[in-house]
């Protein structure tokens, strides 16, 4: 008798609440695309979409890493600097004549190592993620200029071929290899979050770290892993950026962490952790990309409108999260 009573606890809401933010982002993306197509002839060209992907592939990869961190309720301010540092290290090593095969692993190792160290500081010494990753941000940016004060061009064969290879259909629409790499990263991340213990522990920690500890989950290991993953994603992002620009510049990707955090939040991941999907992050990055494209197409709007619109969207989505009450704590 009581058993049936107890099942009433669920609300009448058909749509699972935690999917609302992602669906809202999807709707927003479609609306924005619709506006673009209706206003500008050239917007309907499929290559416009492909260009958004090409221009933002490195952002997407970094945002995927950030999604892991934010899902645990943390934050990683170091991503932009790590991206720049990775590109700088690659460019500098290539300049000294190291083969691409040696440069790639080195460049890809530095980011995760820094992430691992930050994770350790956060976990073992109870330093707030904000401060620890801020130090990481300073460190990585400092390393950039330590390597070189000015931009280093890349002329390595592997890099240029990665940069110039087009994967496309016969009609001439194409994406770069970076886009493919980005989507591989997205797929691996989505699998990790949904189907591995590590991924599920990430959600559990974001939901309630104290409970996760009492349930015997490896909280410390997971937190360190998350910052290492974010470091790895930043490193991959840095490599993709160096494919894209064919250079390493000490001041590139300054403030990128803000775009990344904005993309993750607009993609429906709750900043207090525990709720969100990689798919949402993909949508969030696309929203940012489409805004940029729309503003470029318009011509009369200046680039600073991008920031204002992103700020407005952030506000709208945070308010939405607040209204539907996604706060499990």
């Amino acid at each position, binding site marked *: 008798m009581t058993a049936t009573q107890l099942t009433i606890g669920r609300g009448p809401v058909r749509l699972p609440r935690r999917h609302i933010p992602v669906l809202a982002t999807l709707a927003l993306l479609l609306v924005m695309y619709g506006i673009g197509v209706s206003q500008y002839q050239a917007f309907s060209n499929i290559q416009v979409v492909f260009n958004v992907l090409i221009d933002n592939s490195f952002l997407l990869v970094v945002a995927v890493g950030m999604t892991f961190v934010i899902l645990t309720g943390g934050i990683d301010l170091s991503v932009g600097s790590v991206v720049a540092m990775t590109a700088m290290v690659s460019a500098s090593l290539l300049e000294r004549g190291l083969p691409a095969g040696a440069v790639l692993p080195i460049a890809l190792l530095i980011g995760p190592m820094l992430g691992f160290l930050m994770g350790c500081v956060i976990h073992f010494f109870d330093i707030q993620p904000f401060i620890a990753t801020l130090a990481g941000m300073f460190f990585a940016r400092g390393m950039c200029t330590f390597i070189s004060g000015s931009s280093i061009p890349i002329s390595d064969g592997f890099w240029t071929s990665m940069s110039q290879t087009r994967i496309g259909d016969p009609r001439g629409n194409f994406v770069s290899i970076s886009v493919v790499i980005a989507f591989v990263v997205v797929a691996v991340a989505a699998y990790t979050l949904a189907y591995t213990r590590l991924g599920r522990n990430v959600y559990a920690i974001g939901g309630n770290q104290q409970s996760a500890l009492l349930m015997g989950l490896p909280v410390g290991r997971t937190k360190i892993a998350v910052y290492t993953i974010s470091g790895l994603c930043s490193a991959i992002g840095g490599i993709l950026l160096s494919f894209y620009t064919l250079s390493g510049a000490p001041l590139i990707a300054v403030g990128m962490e803000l775009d990344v955090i904005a993309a993750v939040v607009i993609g429906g991941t709750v900043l207090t952790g525990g709720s969100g999907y990689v798919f949402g992050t993909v949508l969030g990055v696309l929203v940012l990309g489409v805004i940029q494209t729309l503003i470029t197409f318009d011509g009369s709007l200046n680039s600073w409108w991008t920031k204002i619109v992103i700020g407005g969207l952030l506000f709208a989505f945070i308010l939405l999260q607040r209204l539907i009450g996604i706060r*499990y704590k």
Partner: protein
Amino acid sequence: MTERHPVLTMTGISKAFPGVRALHDVDFRLFPGEVHALMGENGAGKSTLIKVLTGVYGIDSGTIILSGEPVSFRGPMQASAGGVSTVYQEVNLCANLSVAENIFIGREPRRFGAVWWGEMRRRARALLTRLDLDIDVNAPLASYSLAVQQMVAIARAIDVQARVLVLDEPTSSLDTGEVAQLFRIMRQLRDEGIAILFVTHFLDQVYGIADRITVLRNGSLVGEYTTAELSQLGLVEKMIGKELDVLERLDEQPKRELAVLERGTPFLDARELSRKGSVAPFSLTIHAGEVVGLAGLLGSGRTEVARLLFGADRADHGDLSVDGRGTTLRNPVGAIAQGIGFCSENRRLEGIVGELTVRENIILALQAARGWLRPVARRRQDELVDKYVKALSIRPANPEIPVANLSGGNQQKVLLARWLITEPRLLILDEPTRGIDVGAKAEIQKLVVELSDGGMAVLFISAELEEVLRLSHKVAVMRDRTLVSELTNDESVDSDRIMQTIASGAGEERATT
């Protein structure tokens, strides 16, 4: 029953913290297929014993033998792997995850290295069916009530082939129907041979389910009894022990006549006040100089009544008048302006500001009432604080140390001082004596008597009926978030009568399940 071998034997357990002897030479045994209640007052050592068993604390001396093997767990996880699972008072699960995941996270069924969601759901459904719980295992845990979440926690605990299930006050936030549901599950698990260690504050729950009772007092073992051989009264005596005498000697002064007190306009008059999901409509009057006791079990709505009267929560319906004038309390600020003070039962979260000094904590409410632009002059602060540190014998008597460094009893006195310097006309005390030692308890009780003699109205909330009876002029009894009865505290009223009032109805319901 005693012929069988105990699944768990704890012998000569001692555990000391600096300045506190938490457990002294305690023996405890647990047989398979029994519900064993661990009883004792706050601070008797129940929690410490459980934490020693589950490896949260190490032991100073003694042995723990589980199924014939000596064990010494190094943490709850190791304990549950060893067959001792614990469900805590607060649900320690992740509300953002699904029900199925909450049961299995950390030991998810996997296939080819990946989490096997289908199998996990199937097993979760099977497990919940065993517990007669018909809920959607895919839904996030947050979408279910606390009671269901508690059951899910139990499901998680028994899935690891638990031989011993420790339930540490699992019922404190459940209503009667939910408790019945929990008991049904406990009986079922007991019949399957699991040994259940059950900690609760509610006497009638003990008699509703337990087969055997172990009583602790002051960190020592009082004895082990079967439920049948120990009467309720006997149990209370064993739990309280000498304290009863100490407190009885404390005040045997005649109480002033209620009829005299209740002349004139009441200070506070609540009519049909209610808040949805919190407390059903209730009416209550409190006169100047009157102590009104609020009795009832934990979770019966006592605190909710207090919060409505203090404006900490807003009432949906009903009328409230203070001094004969109708008023609406939207927030504590409004209530304080009317001369009402409130000491919350949750000292640490809703009472003290641990980082601030004793002095700052004491003047906080007075300062808040004056607004930040009109600071209380430092000399006046020192005078006031000095006066109350002496009057309430707050120790250590140094007002400039952080209040977090004080013991529970002294923190409670600091809170009392905070309200007393605002010279309230009504002071609401929610469990002011919980978890503090006998001496401090007696002092606080004495203070309540003095305050009411001085004309202050007091609403006194306590789970200890003796205490309520000793202090109050009249007693309002809460049950299931409803004020069921108001009794004038004269010769005809004793703790049995109140207990009957609390239990009436609840007992009948339980009989049908």
